[in-house]
């Protein structure tokens, strides 16, 4: 069975996270679960990858985070998309369209052969 290339998908984790944050504030596990559901289980984003993406997006100002205290000593970090994040999301979507267009031409060539 063909598996998704981690090298390819790595550059587009940001799109997935930001798309989910467009619907409102969310947290790590919820985002991970939604990505799994939206891709019918074909892609499961690992916690380390997710945290790395959050740290990068926050550093760049594309998301902001708030720590909320839950019952007991439990804490949860919620992420929100910023205005800059929306611009970045649009730019990444355009980049993906271009990538798909370019790679698509070569995939068709291979399919005919």
């Amino acid at each position, binding site marked *: 069975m063909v598996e998704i290339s981690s090298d390819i998908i790595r550059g587009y984790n940001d799109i997935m996270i930001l798309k989910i944050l467009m619907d409102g504030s969310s947290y790590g596990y919820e985002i991970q679960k939604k990505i799994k559901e939206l891709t019918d289980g074909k892609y499961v984003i690992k916690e*380390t990858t997710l*945290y*790395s993406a*959050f740290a990068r997006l926050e550093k760049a100002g594309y998301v902001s985070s708030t720590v909320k205290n839950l019952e007991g000593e439990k804490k*949860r970090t919620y992420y929100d998309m910023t205005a800059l994040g929306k611009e970045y999301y649009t730019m990444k979507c355009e980049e993906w369209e271009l990538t798909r267009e370019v790679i698509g031409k070569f995939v068709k060539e291979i399919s005919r052969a």
Partner: protein
Amino acid sequence: MNRIQQKLDGIFINFPDTEENRAAREKLEEMMYDKYDALVAEGKSSIEAYAIVNAELGDLESVKEELGITEYAGPMSSKGMTSAYTDEKHPERAKVIRIIVWSLVGVCGCLAIFWALGLCGFFGDHWVEWGLDVAWDNFWTGFKRVLHFLIFFK
């Protein structure tokens, strides 16, 4: 639940107590407990829930550079003592360490050669006694013999 802590302890044993490393551990812990609790609430057993959490955690090694988290620079490091100095982020430091290490290797190598030559009497006309108390005599004799050898062949 303690298995999550044990897992994180195992991962972070190679990472010193810095702000970045603490933040990484805290956030990973949050997500792991959230997932574990959700899976248990869905009806999974504790063992099944932990197995899924463990399998989907991922590899910290592959994202550590991006996160700026650092490992110990000593033998605690998973890649050995030199890993922190060969980091692409510290090329100058790596260069200095390499120069120091190779200089020490060179000096020790020369001393060993002098000592061995002094001891075996290969170029000389007498044997020098074995032992630490006459080690300096051996070094010096060996050094003179190397010099003599070089001058003689010139």
